[in-house]
C-alpha cells in the first residue's frame, strides 16, 4: 500500500490480548501495524487449555458427562449430547422419543442463549453498549427455562446415556409459552437497533469477506459457513435427535461479510424459536429415560464419530474405545478452532478498528478453541 509518494511510516508492533476486553476470553494477537493498518497478525492460542481430551481419557464415561458441559460453556448442551450420542452408539441403544424431543428443544434453547451472547458482544465490540444488555435479557429467559428443568444455568448436566435426567417440571409449560410469545418481539427490537443502522452497516458491510471456496478450504462450519453462501447444516443434512422429524431449513446468506455473519445468527434465533415451538407442539408422551442403561458402561472396542451442529458450527467427537470403561481416545473437532484458523489471513490489510468486529463476527469462544 505504501507508494514512493506516500509518507514513509515505520511499522510497529502492538500486542492485543490475552486480557483484552474484546478477545472473547483469552486470545492474544501480536499485530504488526503500519499506521492504522494491520500488516500482519500473529495469533496465540492456548491460554485456556484445560486438557479436556486427556481428562476424558482418565475418567469414566459418566464422570466426564458434567465435564463435557465445560468444553464450550456457551453451548454445553451440545457437547453433552455429542458425548451421550457417542456412548449410545457404542451401546446400540435407542433413545425414547420424548427424550429426543427434549434434547432437541434444549439444544435450540441453548443455541438461542449462545446467539444472544453473540448479538450482545458483537454490538459491544462495535461500541454499542445497550444491545449487550438486551441480549443478556433474552438469554436470561432461556437460562431460566433450562435452570428450572436441569438445575443449572450454564453447565446443565441434563443429558444422560439413553435419555435425559428429568422430565419437564410443571412450571416449565407456562414459562415456555411466555418465552415463545415474547421472544420474536425481542428479536425485532434487536433488528430495529442494529439491522438497518447506517453506522452499523458502515462498520460491517463488506468487512472481512470470505467466499464459499475459502470458507470450505479452511473447514469453516456453522453460521459462518452458511453466511458465505454454503448450504450446509447438520440439522438438515445429517439429522440427529428429533431434527429429522421436525425438519429444518438452514439460514443461508450470500455475502460472507461481517454483516451477513451477524444476520445469519439473528435469523437463526428466529429459526430456533420456530423449532422450539414445533417441539412443544409435537412433544410425544412417554418415558424420558431408557430402562436398564448401565451407569458405568463398558463399551466394546471400536470407534465412533459423532457430529452435532453447535451454535458455532460442526462439533465433532471421535471416540475410540478399547473395551474398558474409560475412553481410549477422546478427540474433539471443535468448530471454533477451525473458524479461528483463518484469522491471520482475514486480518491482513484491515484497519485496526476492524479487527474487533471481524474477530467478533466469527463468534469463536476460546475454551472451545483451546479445549
Amino acid at each position, binding site marked *: 500500500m505504501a507508494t514512493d509518494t506516500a509518507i514513509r511510516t515505520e511499522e510497529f508492533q*502492538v500486542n492485543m490480548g490475552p486480557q*483484552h476486553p474484546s478477545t472473547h476470553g483469552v486470545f492474544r494477537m501480536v499485530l504488526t501495524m503500519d499506521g492504522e493498518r494491520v500488516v500482519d497478525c500473529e495469533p496465540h492460542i492456548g491460554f485456556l487449555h484445560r486438557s479436556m481430551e486427556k481428562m476424558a481419557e482418565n475418567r469414566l464415561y459418566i464422570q466426564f458427562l458434567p465435564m463435557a458441559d465445560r468444553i464450550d460453556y456457551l453451548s454445553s448442551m451440545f457437547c453433552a449430547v455429542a458425548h451421550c450420542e457417542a456412548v449410545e452408539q457404542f451401546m446400540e441403544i435407542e433413545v425414547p422419543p420424548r427424550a429426543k424431543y427434549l434434547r432437541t428443544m434444549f439444544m435450540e434453547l441453548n443455541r438461542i442463549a449462545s446467539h444472544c451472547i453473540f448479538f450482545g458482544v458483537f454490538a459491544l465490540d462495535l461500541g*454499542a453498549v445497550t444491545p449487550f444488555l438486551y441480549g443478556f435479557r433474552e438469554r436470561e429467559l432461556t437460562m431460566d427455562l433450562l435452570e428450572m428443568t436441569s438445575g443449572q444455568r450454564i453447565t446443565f448436566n441434563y443429558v444422560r446415556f439413553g435419555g435425559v435426567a428429568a422430565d419437564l417440571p410443571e412450571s416449565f409449560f407456562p414459562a415456555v409459552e411466555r418465552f415463545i410469545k415474547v421472544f420474536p418481539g425481542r428479536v425485532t427490537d434487536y433488528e430495529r437497533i442494529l439491522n438497518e443502522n447506517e*453506522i*452499523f452497516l*458502515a*462498520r460491517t458491510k463488506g468487512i472481512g469477506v470470505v467466499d464459499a471456496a475459502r470458507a470450505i478450504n479452511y473447514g469453516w462450519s456453522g453460521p459462518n459457513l452458511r453466511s458465505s453462501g454454503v448450504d450446509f447444516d447438520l440439522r438438515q443434512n445429517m439429522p440427529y435427535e428429533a431434527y429429522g422429524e421436525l425438519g429444518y431449513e438452514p439460514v443461508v446468506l450470500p455475502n460472507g461479510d461481517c454483516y451477513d455473519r451477524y444476520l445469519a445468527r439473528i435469523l437463526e434465533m428466529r429459526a430456533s424459536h420456530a423449532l422450539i415451538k414445533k417441539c412443544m407442539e409435537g412433544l410425544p408422551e412417554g418415558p424420558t429415560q431408557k430402562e436398564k442403561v448401565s451407569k458405568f458402561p463398558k463399551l466394546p472396542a471400536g470407534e465412533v464419530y459423532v457430529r452435532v451442529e453447535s451454535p458455532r458450527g460442526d462439533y465433532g467427537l471421535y471416540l475410540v474405545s478399547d473395551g474398558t470403561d474409560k475412553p481410549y481416545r477422546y478427540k474433539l473437532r471443535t468448530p471454533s478452532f477451525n473458524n479461528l484458523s483463518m484469522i491471520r489471513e482475514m486480518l491482513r490489510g484491515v*484497519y*485496526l*478498528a476492524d479487527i474487533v468486529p471481524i474477530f467478533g463476527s466469527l463468534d469463536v469462544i476460546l475454551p472451545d478453541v483451546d479445549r
Partner: protein
Amino acid sequence: MKRLLEILGDWWAGLVGSAGLPSWVTVLGEMVFAAILIGAFIAVLVLFLIWLTRKVSAHIQLRFGPMRVGWHGAVQTVADAFKLLQKEDTTPRVCDRPVFNVAPFLAFAPTVVAFVVIPFGDGVIVRDLNIGVLFLFAITTINVIAIISGGWASGSKYSLLGGFRSAAQLVSYEVPLVLSALGVIMLAGSMKMGAIVEAQSRVWFVAYQPLAFAVYVIAATAEVNRTPFDIPEAEQELVAGYNVEYSGMKFAMFFLAEFANMFLVSAIAATLFLGGWRGPWLPGELWFLIKSFAIVLLLMFFRWTYPRLRVDQLMSFAWKFLLPLAFVNLLATGLIIALG
C-alpha cells in the same frame, strides 16, 4: 437573578468606592466572584451530569444504576470523587513529567473559561463579548492540545494512538462545527451572544437553520468524544485512549472536562439554535437549563444507542459529508439574506 446580580454589583462597587480603592479592584472582585460562581456551577453540574448519565444509561439498559448512596444513588458521584481523590496518583516512569502533569488542567481550563460568554439568563452572563461566538470556538479548541499532550506525555503507544486519533478528529469536526454556527451569525448579524439570543425573540433559529442545527449536533457529538464518534477512547480497540495512564485526581480532571464540555456544547446549541434563555412563563435561567439538558439527553441517547464509526469513516464523514452540507447551508443562508 439579574436584579440580584445588579444589587450585588452595586453593593460591591459602593464598598470599593467607599474604601477609596482604584476601580480595577471592582472588576477584579467581580471576576473572582464570577469565577467562584462558575466553578461551583460546573462542579455541581458535572456531578449531576455523571449521575444522570448513569441513570439514563441504566434505565435504557433495564438496570437500576446507582441506588445505594443517597436517594437513588444521588450522592454516588460525590462518593466516587472522594474515592478518586484518595487514590494513589501514579506517574509512569517514562513519561514527560511536566507535560503529563499539566495536560489534565489544560483540558479542564478552557471549558471553564468558555462559560464566560454563555448567557445563562437575561443579563446573567459574565462578559457579553462582541466576539462571543468566536471566543467560544477559539477557546474550546485548546482542548485538542491537552488531549494530544496527555497522550504524548504518557509515553505509551496506546495513549499516543488515542491522542493522535483524538486530535485528528477534533480538528476535523471543528470545521463543520464553526461553519454551522456561521449561518446563525449571519442571521443575527452579530457574534455577541446576547444579540444572538435577542434575534431569536420571535422565532428560534432552528426553524431557519435546521440543516445547520443537525450539522452542529453531529459535529458537537464528535467534539465531546461521544459515541458514535468516541474514537479517542474506543474501549474495544484502544482500551481507554489518551487517558489510559492517568489515575486519581488527574484522571478525574479529564473526566470532569469531558462532562463539562458535554454541557458546554449543549449550552451553545441551546443559545445559537433554540433561543437561549427565552421562553414563556418560566424564568430565563430555567429555560436555558431545560433546553441545554434536552440536548445533553439527546447526546446521551446517541451514546447508548449507536455503535462507533471507524477512524477513516469518521474522517470522510466530516470532510465529505458534513463540510459540504455546512457549505450548502451557508450558501443558502447567504442567498436568502441577500435576496430577501
